[in-house]
C-alpha cells in the first residue's frame, strides 16, 4: 500500500478506456499519454491496462507501507527515496517505510507511476480509470489527496530487479501536430483555414477533458448553431469565441461546436505532454 503524504500536482488513478459506454454519454476516459502509460506498465511486465497513477505537473510524495517495485515513465523528473535518487524513466525498488518524493518536471507535463502487477483498486465498466464528474473509478472516483491510501499486491522485491536498462527517453515531439480535416472544416472561411495551419497556438488551461488553445483566434463571422454530434479524444472543436479546444481522454461524447480538425492518433500523446504556455502548430496530414 502507498499513502499520499504531499501533493502539489494533480493525480488520479487511470487505466485503459471504458468500452461500449459512449452510447450513454459516458466518456471513454483512460490514460492521457497512452504511449508513456503503456511503457510504465511494460517496464514491469504488467498487463498494459494495469491501474497506475497519472500525475500532472509534478510534486507528489508517498509513504510505502510495503516493499514494492515501481516504474516511472512520461515526464522527466528526479525521484528521491531518501537514500537513492532516480531519473525517470526508470524501474526502482522501494522498501517498507520509504518515502518516495517526486519533484519538479524538467520536461513534459504528465508522469506515470506504476507498481508491479498494478495498483489493487476498484474498477467500473471494466477499468480503473477515474472519471471525476460521475465519480467513476477508484478512490471514490476522485483525485488523490493527502492521506489517501492505494493498495498494492504483495510482491517479493530484491535489489536485483532494479533495472538499469536504457528506457526510451524520447517524449513525443510537440512542435508540429498532424491533423485530419474535421467534418465541419469547410464551414471555415479561406482565411480561417489559413490561420489554423499557418499560425501557432498557445496551450491554455489543460485538463483531462481538453486543452484550450489561445494566442491566435480563428475569427469566424458567426456560424449557425449545429446539432450535437460525436466528439472524442483528438477532436478539435471551435467555439464561437474563436479559441479552439483539443478534446482529450475525458472528452464528452457529443458537442455542438464545429469539429474543424482531428489530431492523428500518434500525435495526441504529444499534445497531452504539453504544458500551459507552450506553443503548438498544426499541419494537415
Amino acid at each position: 500500500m502507498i499513502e499520499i503524504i504531499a501533493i502539489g500536482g494533480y493525480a488520479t488513478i487511470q487505466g485503459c478506456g471504458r468500452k461500449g459506454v459512449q452510447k450513454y454519454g459516458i466518456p471513454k476516459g483512460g490514460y492521457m499519454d497512452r504511449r508513456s502509460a503503456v511503457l510504465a506498465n511494460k517496464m514491469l511486465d504488467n498487463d498494459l491496462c494495469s491501474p497506475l497513477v497519472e500525475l500532472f505537473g509534478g510534486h507528489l510524495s508517498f509513504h510505502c507501507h510495503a516493499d514494492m517495485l515501481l516504474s516511472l515513465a512520461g515526464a522527466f523528473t528526479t525521484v528521491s527515496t531518501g537514500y537513492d535518487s532516480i531519473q525517470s524513466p526508470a524501474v526502482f525498488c522501494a522498501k517498507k517505510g520509504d518515502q518516495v518524493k517526486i519533484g519538479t518536471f524538467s520536461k513534459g507535463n504528465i508522469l506515470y507511476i506504476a507498481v508491479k502487477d498494478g495498483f489493487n483498486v476498484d474498477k467500473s465498466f471494466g477499468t480503473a480509470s477515474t472519471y471525476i464528474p460521475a465519480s467513476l473509478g477508484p478512490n471514490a472516483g476522485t483525485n488523490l489527496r493527502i492521506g489517501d491510501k492505494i493498495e498494492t499486491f504483495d510482491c517479493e522485491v530484491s535489489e536485483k530487479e532494479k533495472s538499469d536498462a536504457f528506457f526510451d527517453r524520447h517524449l513525443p515531439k510537440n512542435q508540429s501536430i498532424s491533423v485530419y480535416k474535421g467534418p465541419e472544416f469547410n464551414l471555415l472561411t479561406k482565411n480561417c483555414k489559413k490561420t489554423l495551419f499557418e499560425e501557432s497556438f498557445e496551450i491554455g488551461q489543460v485538463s483531462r477533458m481538453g486543452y484550450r488553445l489561445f494566442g491566435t483566434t480563428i475569427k469566424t463571422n458567426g456560424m449557425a448553431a449545429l446539432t450535437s454530434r460525436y466528439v472524442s479524444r483528438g477532436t478539435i472543436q471551435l467555439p464561437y469565441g474563436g479559441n479552439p479546444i483539443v478534446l482529450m481522454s475525458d472528452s464528452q461524447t457529443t458537442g455542438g461546436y464545429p469539429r474543424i480538425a482531428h489530431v492523428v492518433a500518434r500525435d495526441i500523446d504529444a499534445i497531452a505532454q504539453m504544458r500551459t504556455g507552450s506553443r503548438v502548430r498544426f499541419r494537415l496530414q
Partner: protein
Amino acid sequence: MQFIRLSEKTIELRDPARVLSFWIRLRQHIDIGLDQAEEVLNTEDSVVVIFQSSKFVSIEAVQDLLEVFHDEQEEEQRSALTHRIEVDYTTEATDLQAISERFSFSIEELIKLHTERTYQIAMFGFLPGFAYLTGISSQLYLPRKENPSLYIPKGAVAIAERYTGIYPVDTQGGWHVMGYTKNSFLEDIMSGTNNVQPGDFVEFVSK
C-alpha cells in the same frame, strides 16, 4: 446516406430520418459479434461506428454497413420501453416561477404541458447518462439561458429548446429547471441492466 471518416477508427453516417432504426439494427449485428466494431452510438442525425482498429475501416466495412442499412427485414428487436418518472414540480430552487411569468401560463398549466406528453430518448450526450428527450410541446420551447446556472443538482428535470432532460450529476448548465426526481438513467446504466436505450419512451408524472 453520407459517410464521414472522423478519425483512424471512426466513421460517422448521416441519415437523419432513419437514425434510430439503423442504430438498433447495427447494435444487434455488433451484439452478435458480426462486425469488428467496438461500439455503435447515435446522435440525433447520425450513427457513429467505432472500430476496434483502423485496419477494419475499409471499403468492405462500409459496404457491410450499407447492407445493414438497406436490410429492411424486420429482425427481432427489444421493444422500446416506457420509463415513468415521478417529478416533484416545485417553485423551490427551480425556474418554474420564471418560466410561468415568461409564458403567462400558470404553474399548473406548465406542469400539465410537461406531463401530458410522451417523450423519446433521441440520444445520450453532454453528461454521463444525460438523455436528450424529444417531443416537448412547442408551447414550452425556450432557448438555453444566456448565463448558465453555476449549480444544477443531480435529478433536476429541465427544458431547453426542443428538449427536456434529467441532470444525472451535479453540474453547471443552461437549461431551465422545472422540478426534481430521484430517478436517474445513470444509475440504471451503472447497474448494467441495459434497461434504458435510445428509442425508449419517457413520461413524467407529477408527484
